[in-house]
């Protein structure tokens, strides 16, 4: 065990990333179950004692899921597979890789032990003049460390892919997951520094030695939102693109057909990366922007639709006429695509700025982005985890339990998040401890909470299946563990150059 903890080998570090992110996913999910259970009925249910604790819980849930589940999991799979896929013995800088990973646990401790209460946006003026410390400071430094870790990891990926790939492997023949990781890493390098600067400003504002975002000192709270979303709208694509890359790995294998169009996949990745930077202010339509600004960002946001649609079309065309085998990985990916479609449809509504004024800060938004992060991204991640499970452990998980967890997650997530869209249209604001006790709100909140419990059951099945499979599962047939009649990991034919 210790040889894994102190290793600098890419598979060991990838494994550590994956394990840490799954742990974060489970305890972050437990918080979500707590939130939904509290909201089963209006008024204080006693599950969460008071509104301040409620704020601390959803802040930590959001921060945890985005930065300790989605990002580390993508890094973990990247670490595990990128050197294999580009046929190099390891990452370019193994020690830097280990450093990047080991920055995460302290940051995780800061975020979790503090449990700040200012939402994962940390929006001023509340975050600067009122949010209590030391939780707020711990959150700020935790995210600072996570940002540095992401940047170190990205540099490592970019150098590994561009400089260390096998000379016989042109970039345009590398697997699409390599492209996804490359594009994501470049986006991280461009996006993160803005937020890193904003965090320092936030901290000095809290100390009272600067007033960047403090109106009492001549600052502008809206400026923070611009800095924040300049990082975190592209971050949405940083979360999504690795997941899309994983979908590209799974679908051709389980459809037993080559990918429909490799080039359009690459083009759509690059396109998404570019337009991802042209849409940040669509989170801020209701902050009093001029009509011209809103129009520009509305068009910039809609520009992401064709790129996303190119991916979906590519997947559909790959599956079309294929002999699809719905094992657990394929089921998760397929379900993810369905939920992604709903998320995209809701996104088009949000970006139409007159409609955005209706949905802003309501449960519509909660439902919308959860369909995206839970539906597409998490489903693709869990599917890929099942796909890679024999490769990592040499054993097989239980296929029936895998399918059971998929159905629980798929039904649960649909029930929770599609209902939340309607809740938002009824006007229920997000991030509130209580809601108006009228019949439609009560019924839909209860449906949503029941969905959350279904998801909890799915998570329990998932984790017990994985643990049991890793301990006592049947040894996998490494050439074709899913019985799809294809070469399983064709990139396992490694010819490392040293």
């Amino acid at each position, binding site marked *: *065990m210790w040889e894994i903890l102190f290793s600098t080998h890419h598979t060991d570090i990838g494994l550590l990333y994956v*394990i840490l992110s799954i*742990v974060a996913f489970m*305890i972050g999910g437990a918080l979500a179950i707590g939130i939904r259970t509290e909201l089963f009925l209006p008024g204080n249910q006693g599950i969460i004692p008071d509104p*301040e604790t409620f704020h*601390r819980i959803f802040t930590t849930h959001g921060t945890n899921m985005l930065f300790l589940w989605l990002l580390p999991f993508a890094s973990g799979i990247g670490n595990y597979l990128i050197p294999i896929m580009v046929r190099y013995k390891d990452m370019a800088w193994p020690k830097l890789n280990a450093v990047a990973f080991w920055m995460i646990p302290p940051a995780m*401790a800061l975020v*979790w*032990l*503090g*449990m*700040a*209460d200012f939402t994962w946006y940390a929006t001023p003026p509340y975050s*600067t*003049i*009122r*949010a*209590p*410390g*030391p*939780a*707020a400071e*711990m959150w700020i430094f935790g995210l600072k460390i996570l940002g540095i870790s992401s940047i170190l990891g990205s540099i490592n990926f970019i150098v590994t892919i561009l400089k260390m790939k096998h000379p016989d492997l042109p970039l345009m023949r590398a697997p699409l997951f390599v492209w996804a990781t490359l594009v994501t890493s470049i986006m991280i390098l461009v996006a993160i520094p803005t937020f890193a600067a904003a965090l320092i400003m936030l901290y000095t*504002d*809290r*100390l*009272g030695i600067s007033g960047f975002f*403090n109106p*009492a*000192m*001549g600052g502008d709270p809206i400026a923070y939102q611009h800095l924040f979303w300049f990082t975190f709208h592209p971050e949405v694509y940083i979360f999504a693109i690795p997941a899309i890359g994983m979908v590209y790995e799974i679908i051709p294998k389980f459809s037993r057909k080559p990918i429909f169009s490799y080039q359009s996949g690459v083009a759509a990745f690059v396109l998404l990366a570019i337009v991802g930077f042209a849409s940040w202010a669509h989170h801020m339509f209701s902050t009093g922007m001029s009509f011209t600004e809103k129009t520009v960002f509305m068009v910039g946001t809609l520009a992401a639709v064709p790129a996303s649609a190119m991916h979906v079309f590519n997947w559909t065309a790959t599956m079309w006429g294929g002999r699809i085998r719905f094992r657990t990985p394929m089921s998760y990916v397929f379900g993810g695509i369905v939920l992604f479609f709903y998320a995209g449809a809701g996104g088009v509504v949000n970006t139409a700025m007159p409609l955005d004024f209706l949905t802003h800060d309501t449960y519509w938004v909660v439902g919308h982005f959860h369909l995206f992060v839970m539906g597409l991204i998490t489903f693709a991640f869990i599917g890929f985890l099942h796909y890679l499970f024999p490769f990592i*452990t*040499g*054993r097989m998980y239980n296929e029936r339990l895998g399918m059971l967890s998929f159905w629980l997650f798929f039904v649960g997530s649909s029930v929770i998040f599609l209902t939340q869209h309607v809740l938002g249209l009824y006007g229920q604001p997000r991030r509130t401890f209580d809601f108006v006790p009228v019949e439609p709100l009560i019924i839909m909140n209860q449906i949503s909470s029941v969905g959350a419990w279904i998801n909890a059951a799915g998570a329990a099945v998932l984790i017990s299946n994985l*643990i049991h499979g*890793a*301990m*006592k599962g049947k*040894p996998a047939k*490494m050439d074709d563990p899913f019985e799809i009649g294809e*070469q399983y990991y064709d990139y*396992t*034919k*490694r*010819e*490392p150059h040293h």
Partner: protein
Amino acid sequence: MEDHDHKDPIILTSPGRMTRGLVIIGITLAVGAGILITFFDEMVSNPPPVSLIKQPQQPVEEEPPVQAGTTTITILAGASVQGNNDYEPDNAQVPLGNKIVWKNDDTAIHTATSGTGAEDTTSGDVFDTNLINPGESSDPMELASVKEGDIIDYYCFVHPYMNGKITITAAQPAGEGSGSGAPTGPTINILAGSSTQNAPDYDPDTLTVKKGDKITVVNQDSTIHTITSGTGPEAADFGKLFDTKFMNPDDSVTIDTANLEPSSYPFFCMVHSYMKGTLVVEE
């Protein structure tokens, strides 16, 4: 498949290794949960340092009760163009306790907001008219916590290049003012209905003042009028000595006689040239 590929031997995870890993994770989480629960409330017990910085409290002085008069400052037509004259008078002498009315003669919306500009953190503390529509006047502004000799900068929030000053002078003795909001000193009222020919127009028709007096002209009619020096529009030098320019209904304008030699001056209305009156200035 070629045979020379260096396939790593697959190491099956063993129950023992897996259990050890789970124990490590479990212990870490248990320790973390213990710390979290122990210090849960302490973690949100400190307000941010910036909220503890005390703003210096300014002592509030009791203002002497003064009979309030009203001073009118005009925002000239064309003031919205940078470089044009804006506030008239640019440096108004306002007796302590007077209320101030800004009259917007321009075609654009303006304000009079105390301070040197939008960056000034005390902007609007002394007074702020808010937006004054074209042709309208602001509410009478009371100046907060000023004393004699104060010079207050103000500007237009919409056009920050429009700047003016107010100098607070000695309070007017009580009784000289004629009640709240009413003009003080010699007054010419343009009577309601004066636009009709032969109807009574200026009240009084002949006003006698001392040199240096300020005359307040109030348009009580429902149309535009002027008080323009000269015998009529055919006189070559009309309006050279004094001219209120166009006064909207309910406007009031001040005529300063400091520059007029003691004499008798005929005046008329540019809009309605049958409206005539006389101003007599004495030593």
